[in-house]
């Protein structure tokens, strides 16, 4: 029930808002959208807590099923999506970008939510692809209509580049999916698992899936759509892109190639890990010199997603844990940063770092604090959400088989403690419906993977360097008069506070995201 409500509510309210966008006034549209988003969040929590499952035939003649379920990998991301949507709609009540009617704006946000939730919950390969595509058009319109209107040509190009790049990626993924469905004879993920494909078949299917999803993540050579899209998109668009859309890519990597073609993925893994590390360094280096703050945060996203790719590429249980938490952590941190940068852009007109401005610490301390929490999270400060993902990613690359690095988590987690909605990723991944998946095919070349660990650690240093650069340029500075009127509005304060608290809570209690009796390194049952 929760699943259906959480998907139907945004779909119906979103469509109605778009269709009736000329007739409904902004206030009513906002509250309707907020109600829908909040309802979807409640339903998502309920679904996550109850472990809901739907299984129905949809396009019966072609064997496609409306097959949805929650599990330990989906739920954190679904919750992230539903929460971020509430925040984004809330933010829109006071800070809606110009460019179109309120109904259209909220409707698009809700449709993006629908696509993301359906992607995270579906257990049918074909439906996964369709859900994956649902977000494209709403996001395209969001960037195109509501984006930064300084340069219409750049805006149009950024929007269309976003659509074409991601459509290319998902089409490649589609061929992988269709090959998989053809080989396995079913599009139900659980049954695909049982089909027992040969290792070579798995390799080329995994290759297609990884390349296709790498565009969405984005992994290094496929990332060039992200910075312009982020730079041009309105604040809500950037937040959704970073916190939700990129997660669809990493989630897809876990759900499709890793879970369904494990042998193939283990062989593609080193390549993925290498590209991830190149992305970490590339993104970090660009962040050191980038002048546009929004673009800088976008490149830092490339770097953070590089850590996820590295962690997944190690093919270890610990790496998987790292990827899961890095995913959620990046979602929360980048959402906060984009909210702050969006607020600054509204106030300053641009976020060019080379322009000298009054120090944030002095003039707008509210925004200043939010920015610092975001930057600290981004650089991986221990105690904040960003730390665990990066630390464990590097640890998993250094020693894929070991569990030594995980000691602090075990300690934090109070040994056997389980999160508030009971789940265990290892159970989900390594034993689904009685089918064993062993992800033990560790990296073939210890020297390579250790080299990658070292390089990724260097990347973490770069993250510290560029975060501090930003802090120095806009947060520190000479004394400036306190500007009460320009500081955070109540809505901004609420949104940013929620995200900042989430960053701290996840930093102190990472087991909220990965928990279970044997989190990692333990017995792969």
């Amino acid at each position, binding site marked *: 029930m929760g699943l259906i409500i959480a998907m139907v509510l945004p779909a119906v309210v979103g*469509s109605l808002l778009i*269709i009736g966008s*000329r007739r409904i006034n902004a206030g009513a549209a906002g509250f309707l959208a907020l109600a829908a988003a909040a309802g979807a969040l409640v339903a998502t929590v309920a679904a996550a807590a109850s472990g809901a499952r739907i299984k129905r*035939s*949809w*396009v*019966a*003649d*072609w064997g*496609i099923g409306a097959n949805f379920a929650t599990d330990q990998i989906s739920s954190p991301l679904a919750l992230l999506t539903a929460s971020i949507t509430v925040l984004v709609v809330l933010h829109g009540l006071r800070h809606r970008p110009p*460019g*179109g009617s309120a109904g259209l704006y909220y409707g698009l946000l809700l*449709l993006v939510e629908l*696509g993301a939730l359906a992607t995270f919950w579906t257990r049918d390969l*074909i439906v996964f*692809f*369709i859900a994956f*595509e*649902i977000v*494209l*058009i709403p996001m*395209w*319109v969001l960037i*195109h*209509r509501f984006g930064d209107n300084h340069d219409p040509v750049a805006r*149009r190009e950024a929007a*269309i580049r976003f*659509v*074409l790049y991601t*459509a*290319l990626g998902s*089409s*490649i993924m*589609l*061929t992988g999916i*269709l*090959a998989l*469905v*053809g080989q396995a004879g079913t599009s139900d993920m659980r049954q695909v698992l049982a089909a027992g494909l040969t290792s070579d078949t798995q390799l080329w299917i995994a290759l297609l899936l990884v390349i296709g999803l790498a565009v969405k993540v984005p992994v290094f050579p496929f990332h060039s759509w992200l910075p312009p899209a982020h730079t041009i998109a309105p604040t809500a668009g950037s937040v959704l892109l970073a916190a939700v859309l990129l997660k669809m890519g990493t989630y897809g990597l876990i759900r499709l190639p890793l879970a369904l073609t494990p042998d193939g993925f283990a062989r593609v893994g080193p390549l993925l890990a290498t590209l991830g590390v190149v992305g970490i360094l590339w993104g970090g280096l660009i962040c050191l010199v980038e002048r546009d703050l929004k673009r800088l945060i976008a490149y830092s996203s490339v770097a953070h997603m590089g850590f996820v790719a590295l962690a997944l590429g190690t093919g270890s249980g610990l790496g998987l844990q790292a990827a899961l938490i890095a995913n959620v952590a990046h979602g929360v941190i980048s959402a906060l940063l984009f909210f702050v940068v969006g607020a600054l852009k509204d106030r300053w007109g641009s976020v060019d770092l080379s322009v000298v401005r009054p120090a944030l610490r002095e003039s707008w301390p509210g925004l200043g604090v939010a920015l610092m929490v975001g930057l600290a999270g981004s650089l991986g400060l221990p105690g904040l959400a960003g730390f665990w993902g990066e630390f464990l990613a590097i640890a998993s690359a250094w020693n894929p088989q070991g569990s030594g690095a995980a000691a602090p988590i075990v300690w934090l987690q109070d040994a056997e403690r389980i999160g508030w909605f009971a789940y265990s990723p290892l159970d989900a991944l390594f034993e689904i419906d009685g089918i064993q998946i062993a992800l033990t095919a560790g990296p073939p070349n210890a020297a390579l993977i250790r080299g990658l660990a070292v390089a990724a650690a260097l990347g973490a240093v770069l993250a510290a360097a560029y975060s501090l650069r930003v802090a120095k340029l806009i947060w520190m500075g000479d004394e400036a008069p306190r500007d009460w009127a320009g500081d955070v509005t109540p809505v901004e304060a609420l949104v940013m506070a929620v995200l900042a608290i989430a960053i701290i809570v996840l930093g102190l209690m990472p087991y909220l995201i990965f928990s279970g009796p044997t989190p990692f390194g333990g017995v792969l049952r």
Partner: protein
Amino acid sequence: MTTSLISIDWRVLVPVLAPAIGALLVLLVDALAPRARGLHLPIGLAALGAGLGGLPYAVTTATPTRTLCLPGPDARCFYETGPTGLTLQLIALAGSLLVLLMLGPGTRHLDRMQRGGPAVTVGLVLAATTGAVMVVAARDLPTWLVAIELATLPAVALVALSRGRGAEGGALSLLMVSLTSFAFLACGIGLWVLATGDASFSTDTLRVAFDDTPRHRVLLLSILFLLAGLGFKLSAVPFHTWTPQAFVVSDEPIAAYLATVSKAAAVGAAVVVLGPLVSVTAAGSDDGHSIRLVLGVLAAASMTLGNLVALRADDPVRLLAWSTIAQAGWVLAPLAMLTPTAVSASVAYLLVYVLGSLAVFAVTAAVHPRAEGAGERSLTAYRGLARRSPLLAIVLGLGLLTLAGLPPAVLGVVAKIVAITPVVATGQWWLVAILVANIVLGIAVYLRWLLYAVRPAPSITPGDTAESAPAPRLDPGLRIALLLLAAALVLLSLVPGLALGLAR
């Protein structure tokens, strides 16, 4: 007693007879009561509706609907429809119905479209539809050839009678193509009879001819001729050049007719030819591979060239003409795999393409109210359409996204998946790569158009005529067609199984 030679089940023939009788009735009414201009459209709609009502919706592959059977134990039938045939007949009848609604002959519309008068227009549409419905079910060569020409020639007349400037020129090029195509088909048929010694599309005689080396060569030549002839009708590259010429000079509903019902007739003709080939080459032969390669190359060239040129077109109807060429490639790609599932995939894709195309053509008919000739229509006329007329914008968006294969038009996405599946299953990876590239190209083509519709009103230029123009007044027939198409696209996007299951 010649009646006992062949058994006729009139009920089965209703889909073919209804439009044919309708056409006769229209001409009769025109002869007896020339003043009754308002009668023709209802007669036409009723005839097509009767045809739709007479379709055997419950038909399955195992037990096709048959009639015109010879007596005897191994009774051979000359009229046969299975699920794919049913789908194609449905497309032809429903497509014609919508085109007639858009044309609205005899109503206010008449003055701006179609010079011949309502009786001529309705009669021609019904006649061409009869051919399109018949060709799918024809199992003997002469009927097949007559039917395919019956589907083509009235369409030539409809183009010639269009109001746009240069309509005669366009009709002439279409006529030349039809004649060339007819010549190819006639040669192909002659060679087919020579090779098989049988004037019908029968699997048994084909198999015998296939195994006999000298006859085998003649048969291959025959297939090549037939494919070339059908290539013209399908507007597959390199037989496509007539398409943009004929489309841009036609009234928009006539262009829609060429893009949809005529395509259904061409695909139907191709399915009839390829049907026996599918069962013969299923065992796996070299010829299967070479036919697959030839068709695959045609498909790849059509979609790539069509999309690339459509990307540059500014006249929306010209854009649609090239998009039709590209979509012909998408229909051909699964067909080229020569497997039974691939044939139904191709027909299912055609159904979705026809829905999307009709939606977009209906919007063009509404947006360009004067019969504008080539060079006068422009995509800029769609600026701010979402603000001026939400209905038109929604139908346009759904239609374009269906053609592009993007949600919220889930129907289009599922159609793309259905079309690619057989190609992946057969392992033609080079074609898969081209299909993937063309998904992206196609998205670029259709979003470019959609961009104009969703573009915010340019408030800086108050004198912009396109912007200050009031919402176009819709004729009742056109409005009904638009609403029907919107409802169909929304419904089928929620339950795509309804449409796609039909062809199975």
